[in-house]
C-alpha cells in the first residue's frame, strides 16, 4: 500500500520538474554520426573506443529523453555522442592515411629498386658495348698490323726480287741490265740461259702490277745506225715477247731501240763493246711513273 503511494509521489514529482518530451535535433544528429562511423570498415580497429563512447552517450541521451529530462541534458548527452563519433571518424581517416603512407613507402622502395636495377642493367650493357668496341678496335688494329706486315713483306720480297735481278739504282730508277751473253751475236733470239732472268722479271711484274718497265735495247758502235737501232729494237722486243709468254700483261712494259747512242763503256775495246751490247730494264716507281731524266 505504502509502495504504491511512494511510486505515485515519485512519479508526480518527476512529472512536475520535467519538461514536455520532444524530438531532439541533437539526438538525431548524433545518431547519424554514429551510423556514418559504424559503416567505416576501419571503425572497430581504429575508433572502437570512440564508437563505444558515442553509443553509450547516445543511450544516455535516449534514456534521459524517455524520462523527459530537460532538453539541456538530453542535448548535452547527444552532443557528447556526436563529438565521440566525430573524433572516431577523424581517427578512421587518420588510419586510412597511415595505410596510404605505408603503401607509399612500399611503392617508393619498389620505384628505387626498379630504378637501380635498370641503372645496373644499363651500366652492364654499356660495359658490354665498351668491351665489344675495344674488341672491335683490337681486331681492326690486328688487321691493320697484318696488312702492314703483308705490305712490308711484299716490299721486302720485291726488293729481294730486284736484288736477285741484280738491279742497280740509277737516276732513271732501278735498272736491270741484261748483258749480250743472253743473245747470240747479231741475233735477237734469247738464249735458253735467259729464262731464269725472264722468269724472275715476270714473277716480279706479276706480284707488283703497279710497276711498269721500259725495255731498252742498246748496241755497240759497229755497223750502221739503222742496223743497230733495228737490232736493239728486236732484242727489246724479244724480251717483251718472253715476258708475254710468262703471262705478263702488255700494259706492264714498253719497248724501245736505242741503238748505239747510249754506250756505257768505250767502244774502242772488245770488253767495252760487249758491255755496250745490252738490254736495260728500267723500273717505274710503284705508281707506274718513270723517273724524269733530261736527255
Amino acid at each position, binding site marked *: 500500500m505504502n509502495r504504491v503511494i511512494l511510486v505515485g509521489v515519485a512519479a508526480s514529482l518527476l512529472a512536475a520538474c520535467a519538461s514536455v518530451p520532444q524530438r531532439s535535433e541533437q539526438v538525431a544528429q548524433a545518431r547519424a554520426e554514429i551510423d556514418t562511423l559504424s559503416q567505416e570498415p576501419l571503425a572497430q580497429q581504429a575508433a572502437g573506443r570512440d564508437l563505444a563512447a558515442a553509443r553509450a552517450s547516445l543511450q544516455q541521451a535516449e534514456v534521459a529523453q524517455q524520462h523527459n529530462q530537460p532538453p539541456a541534458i538530453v542535448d548535452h548527452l547527444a552532443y557528447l555522442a556526436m563529438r565521440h563519433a566525430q573524433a572516431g571518424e577523424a581517427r578512421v581517416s587518420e588510419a586510412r*592515411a597511415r595505410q596510404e603512407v605505408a603503401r607509399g613507402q612500399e611503392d617508393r622502395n619498389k620505384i628505387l629498386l626498379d630504378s637501380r636495377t635498370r641503372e645496373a642493367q644499363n651500366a652492364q650493357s654499356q660495359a658490354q658495348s665498351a668491351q665489344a668496341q675495344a674488341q672491335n678496335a683490337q681486331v681492326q688494329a690486328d688487321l691493320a698490323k697484318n696488312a702492314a706486315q703483308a705490305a712490308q713483306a711484299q716490299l721486302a720480297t720485291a726488293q729481294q726480287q730486284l736484288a736477285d735481278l741484280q738491279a742497280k739504282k740509277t737516276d732513271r730508277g732501278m735498272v736491270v741490265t741484261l748483258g749480250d751473253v743472253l743473245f747470240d751475236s747479231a741475233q735477237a733470239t734469247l738464249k735458253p740461259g735467259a729464262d731464269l732472268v725472264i722468269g724472275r722479271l715476270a714473277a716480279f711484274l706479276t706480284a707488283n702490277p703497279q710497276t711498269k718497265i721500259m725495255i731498252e735495247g742498246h748496241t755497240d758502235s759497229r755497223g750502221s745506225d739503222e742496223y743497230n737501232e733495228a737490232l736493239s729494237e728486236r732484242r727489246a722486243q724479244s724480251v717483251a715477247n718472253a715476258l708475254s709468254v710468262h703471262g705478263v700483261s702488255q700494259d706492264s712494259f714498253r719497248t724501245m731501240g736505242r741503238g748505239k747512242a747510249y754506250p756505257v763503256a768505250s767502244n774502242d775495246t772488245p770488253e767495252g763493246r760487249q758491255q755496250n751490247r745490252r738490254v736495260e730494264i728500267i723500273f717505274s716507281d710503284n705508281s707506274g711513273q718513270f723517273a724524269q731524266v733530261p736527255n
Partner: protein
Amino acid sequence: MSLRTELISAAAIACGLAAGCATEGPPPSEEVTRARTVIEQADRAGAQRYAAADLQRAHDQLSNAEKANGEGKYDEARRYAESAEADADVATARASDGEAQRAAHEVVQGNETLRQESARGAAANANAQ
C-alpha cells in the same frame, strides 16, 4: 520506516532520476581537470593548425565551465567541462588526421617525383646508348 522518511527518500529518488532538476551535484573539479589535460593534448597535436575551430570551442566551453563553477552552477559547469573535453578530443583526433593526411600526400608526391626522375633517367640512358 515512517511515512515521512519514505516520502523524503522518494523525492530523492525522483530528483536523482531527473538529474539537475532539484539538487546540484558536487563541483566538477575532476571534469575540469580532464578537460584542461585533453586541451593541452590537442595543442601539442597541432590542433591550432588542423582543427582551430574545435580547439577554440573547447577553450570556450572550458571558460564557460569555470564561470559556471564560480557561480555555484556545478551541474552546468560539469556539462561545459564534459563538452570541452569532447571538443578537445575531436580537435586532437582531427589534428592527428591532418598530420597523417599531410604525410600521405608527401609520400604520394615524392613517389610521383621519383617516378618521373626515374623515367627521365631511363630515357636519358636509352638515348645515350
